[in-house]
């Protein structure tokens, strides 16, 4: 067991100080918000920063959720508990609520942020498939301004993101003009309470097509879209639907680990996507 390293702890109050810290310490400065993954990394010796830059008190980073006509903006410091309680998130993005509610325990969700769940870049991050399937975009802020990209492009691989030196997350935007009709998140775990996903899938049926995003079955979460309307059509030939989902599942490249074997995961990718899709379609027809 590694001893807890003793990095310095900074708690800047404005973004300018954050940037100064990050410039000064470079890769050995570690920005964090909830810290629920960071503390585990420190304990296991996988993270050994010289300076921990706590973002929780930074006034220019939002703790809440802002809604306009086209976007729902989730501030960088928004905790998962706050996220799942928000009425607009609940009504427009129920699969994100389902996904966020599977992260850790209530205590963890009171502390952990949505942005942090994505920046941790675990292949099994619970909220990632939902963000991908809803076409969420992430906003990154640095001294040079703000840039945006799809969350799908932000996560590069296990523990790797497109975050550049000197950059932190400003917020995550979910489009309100996508015409989401039905969505659902499902996942498989070894036990029901507090566990990491063996397989996770989010299905979203919207104006543009049916989007299915997958977690824990590839180095990074990924999303695939059916624009032909086969998946969204409850009267489509079941064989055609199954063939399409099987084709989607072929993009998965699961590994065998303590949570499940490659073979089981590969089979469950199809089962979970069928179930998520079915629920999404059912929800679409509800008022």
């Amino acid at each position, binding site marked *: *067991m*590694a*001893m*807890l390293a003793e990095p310095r702890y900074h708690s800047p109050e404005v973004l300018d100080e954050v940037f100064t810290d990050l410039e000064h310490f470079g890769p050995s400065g570690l920005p964090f918000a909830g810290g629920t993954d960071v503390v585990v990394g420190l304990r296991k010796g996988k993270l050994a920063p010289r300076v921990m830059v706590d973002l929780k008190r930074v006034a220019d980073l939002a703790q809440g959720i802002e809604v306009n006509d086209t976007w729902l903006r989730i501030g960088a410091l928004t905790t998962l508990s706050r996220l799942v309680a928000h009425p607009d998130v609940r009504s427009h993005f129920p699969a994100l609520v389902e996904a966020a509610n599977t992260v850790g325990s209530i205590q963890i969700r009171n502390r952990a942020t949505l942005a942090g769940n994505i920046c941790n870049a675990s292949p099994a991050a619970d909220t990632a498939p939902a963000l991908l399937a809803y076409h969420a975009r992430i906003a990154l802020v640095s001294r040079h301004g703000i840039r945006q990209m799809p969350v799908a492009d932000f996560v590069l691989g296990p523990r790797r993101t497109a975050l550049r030196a000197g950059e932190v997350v400003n917020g995550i935007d979910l489009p309100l003009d996508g015409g989401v009709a039905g969505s659902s998140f499902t996942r*498989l775990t*070894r*036990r*029901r*309470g*507090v*566990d*990491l996903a063996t397989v996770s899938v989010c299905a979203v049926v919207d104006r543009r097509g049916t989007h299915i995003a997958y977690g824990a079955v590839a180095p990074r979460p990924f999303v695939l879209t059916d624009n032909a309307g086969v998946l969204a059509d409850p009267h489509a030939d079941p064989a055609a639907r199954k063939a399409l989902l099987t084709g989607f599942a072929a993009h998965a490249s699961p590994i065998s680990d*303590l949570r*499940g*074997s490659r073979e*089981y995961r590969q*089979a*469950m990718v199809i*089962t979970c996507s069928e179930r998520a899709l079915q629920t999404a379609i059912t929800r679409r027809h509800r008022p």
Partner: protein
Amino acid sequence: MNSEIVGASVRRVGGQERVTGRYRFVGDLRLEGMLHVKLVGLDCAHARVDAVQADAARSLPGVHAVVTENDLPRPMPRFGPVHHDRPILTTGYTTYHGEPVAAVVAETEELAAHAAQLVRVDYTELPSVTTVAAALDPTSPLVQDPDRRSGALAFTNVLSESRFGWGDEPGAAELVVDEAYVFPMVTHFAIEPHTFLAAPDHDGVQVWSAVQHPFALQQVLAELLGLPLAKVRVHAPDPGGAFGGKQHAKFEPLLALIAQRLSRPVRLELSLEETFQAVRRTMFEIRLRSGFFRDGRFAFQDAECNALLGAYADIGPRVVSKSTYLMCGPYRVPSARIHVRALLSHTPPATAFRGFGTPQVVWALESQLDEAARRLGIDRLEIRLRNLAGPGEEFMRGGKPADGDWGISLRRAAEEVRWSEPLPSGRGRGVAVGIKASATTGASYAIVRLHVDGSATVLSGTSDMGQGARTVLAQIAGQELGVDVLRVRVVMGDTALVPFDLQTSASRSTVFMGSAVRAACQDIHRQLVEMAAATFQLSADQVSVTGGLVQLPSRKLSFAELLAEAFAGVGGEVIGIGSRRGEHVGTHPLGGPPAFYEFSATACEVAVDDETGELTILKHISVADVGRAINPAQVESQDEGAAIMGLGHTLMEHLLFDKRGAVRNLGALDYRIPTTKDLPLALQSLLTENGDGPGPYGAKGAGEGGLFAVAPAVASAVAEATGAVVRDLPLTPERIWRALQDTKDPSDA
């Protein structure tokens, strides 16, 4: 006076302190001038230690010592409850993952941990034995040095081997079922980490450890340190969960030697990961070849049991012999041949764990009965009832006859899950029973002091590790002395204060220590009669004690009234002494007959998701034959706790090892235990109380039974729901899914 203290669910003694965080566990203790110890281990199981380079660690300010084998007596002293095979610190080799090669002693816990990182161990990794097959393979490396073993098995990894049985050679059976069953290694996962403190004490030593057997630890320390028992004082604060994992000495001898050497108190707290590496349940592979008559009765039982112990014997050989003694369960089996091997391996020492080998044996036996029932087309409840021994029946040839009406509990369990009613598809029910031979030999002594105001102090060497022994002993004293439980103090956990008790294990405390406390109270009754006779100038036969009162020819007195009269102006108290002993019987295979059998029946209903293999337990019924529940709420909570613990090895728990013999799922993230969300949707414990136990008021022991039969009951329900039969635990979704793939007819695909 309330005469119904026994049988009432009085509030748990010490419960409020625990739920409010005020109870001081051993980990909360701090000693003046205390130093902290951190152990240094390797990340593989079996290795030759070439050199321990500790200069960097030793040179850190605040580091007092880095103790290696060179700092300890030669030859290295060894200890253990069955064989003296466990060294205080390993010599030359490590034999399981994490076995310490050095101990760093420093001013603070953090510094000790940091310095431990700086200790460089040069070592040569060696092949390790972590499976039954490897342990039986004559070409495998030997786990223990043959020079330290004796007999024909010294050059093998077989620690002990036995064959026993009864009856004639098997006659004509109409069905022979031949199957193999695996029960994995699991860890105790007590919430309280193992913590040890030791301090020099003039010409002796004091040790603090949340140990189940303080007197056994005292004995070990006295032998290793060459001290008289009276100079070794073991403090055993109530453990925060033990489950068998805190029975025997572990690092207390090392701590005591370091404390003596440095003349300072020292403290060691194991992390959860280190606890995983310190103790675990015995793993079993059992092959059963069972003959049945057409009506489902047993014709014979042939069993081949291989139990995988760890690198040191610990209490493992006793776990193996005691559990396989009941390899034929509570059933009438006319002919049996049982072959048992206890095997050494390069894994953490296997020790006692709630059930003491019984859940392992029950898993195989009950699953085998289900297989026979399926093949014979007999109802699974019916096949059990046809074989189950009746009250008083000598079901084990030459053994203690059945001491309960076990069919009552079995039928109750089945009725509660509506056994004979139809089920929707995808659902299944299971029922199974388990039986354990309880404590055999051993002594328990108790002292009860009746104070002048009628309140009482009980001195007992039992450990209250959550099972509620303090409450039960207070209830017994309260009942006998006519005093409210709130006016009884139970003193435990200090070998300098309380009289000898062999151990807190095998669900023995209510029967053995409870009887001792009751006997001590009856000793007080006798003294009170004499005292009353002398005080009031009566003859002894004119005085009696009943219902907590002294009955004189003319009136009744409370004990306090009598004492006030008798001790007027002088003061005093009445001290009662009681004991209960189970004597050694050399001819008995267990060293003596069990005081009682712990019998349990489990029934459940499950729903299986046939696409994912996930299972939901809709209803779980546990019935315990307890003789008499002295505190029904406590018995039920113990039984429910056991049932939930049983769901762990049934559904998700197993320690996994890599090729280097290292534990792959070391820690809470990858070793999963049930959470509240994993519990059955309905869970109920029922008690069968026939007053037929050997303990006070007809009580038997309880608290282990609830987990005996969980796994076979759930697996049986899964088989009914899906047709898939799983013979390896745990029943993970993936394992059930695989079994479902195997059962699916390829033509259906």
